[in-house]
């Protein structure tokens, strides 16, 4: 019975890890690649670790596996958000097929502050530009 569970967990986990790898090589855009990395890989690794927990059937191993899974679940979205934000500032282009860019013109270029009203940001940006012109 436990063997069947291990078969199922290991197979599903490997499938998801493989899908994440195919996704990261086939996706057309940096942002889509980040999204693949966080979702598919987290589920795949969680299932593989679950297979180990079922196999050993031991309190200490299960605790360790739970710690790793919870840690990955908590940190994957945080890391993806940080790296996606940096990618936007570095000026990575969105894919040609993307329909909408909600963040367009809403970031102050020098302070990296986000405003809900695009006009405020434009004022700040133009102010900054005139300041730098005077300095030059």
């Amino acid at each position, binding site marked *: 019975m436990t063997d069947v569970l291990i078969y199922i967990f290991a197979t599903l986990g490997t499938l998801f890890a*493989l899908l994440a*790898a195919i996704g990261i090589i086939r996706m057309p855009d940096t942002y889509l690649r980040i999204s693949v990395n966080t979702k598919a890989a987290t589920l795949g690794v969680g299932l*593989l670790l679950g297979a180990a927990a079922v196999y050993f059937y031991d309190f200490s191993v299960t605790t360790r*596996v739970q710690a790793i899974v919870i840690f990955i679940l908590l940190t994957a979205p945080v*890391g993806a958000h940080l*790296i996606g934000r940096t990618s936007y500032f570095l000026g990575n282009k969105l894919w040609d097929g993307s329909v909408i860019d909600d963040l367009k013109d809403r970031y102050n270029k020098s302070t*990296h502050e986000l405003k809900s009203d695009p006009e405020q940001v434009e004022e700040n940006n133009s102010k900054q530009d005139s300041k730098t012109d005077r300095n030059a």
Partner: protein
Amino acid sequence: MTLNDYLYYVILPLLSLAEILVFIRFIKGPSIIDRVVALDLLITIGIGIIAIYSIINNQPTFLDIAMILALIAFLSTVAFSYYLEKRNKND
């Protein structure tokens, strides 16, 4: 086919194939962000390989290394994004 054979001859080669595919993106990656993301995914799949390997060898101690690798993956992603954004700000 026993469980060990299945893990050794089916699961591990498939995970290795996944690692190779991610490594292609790691080498090709047009921007540095792609490389950081690929590195993160490499380490994450490596954690899965360690889990399978600990089943094959019947050694639960290997899972400690998996925990440390998860920590390092998160820390490297945060550090890379922090310093890349800072470099962009100063320009």
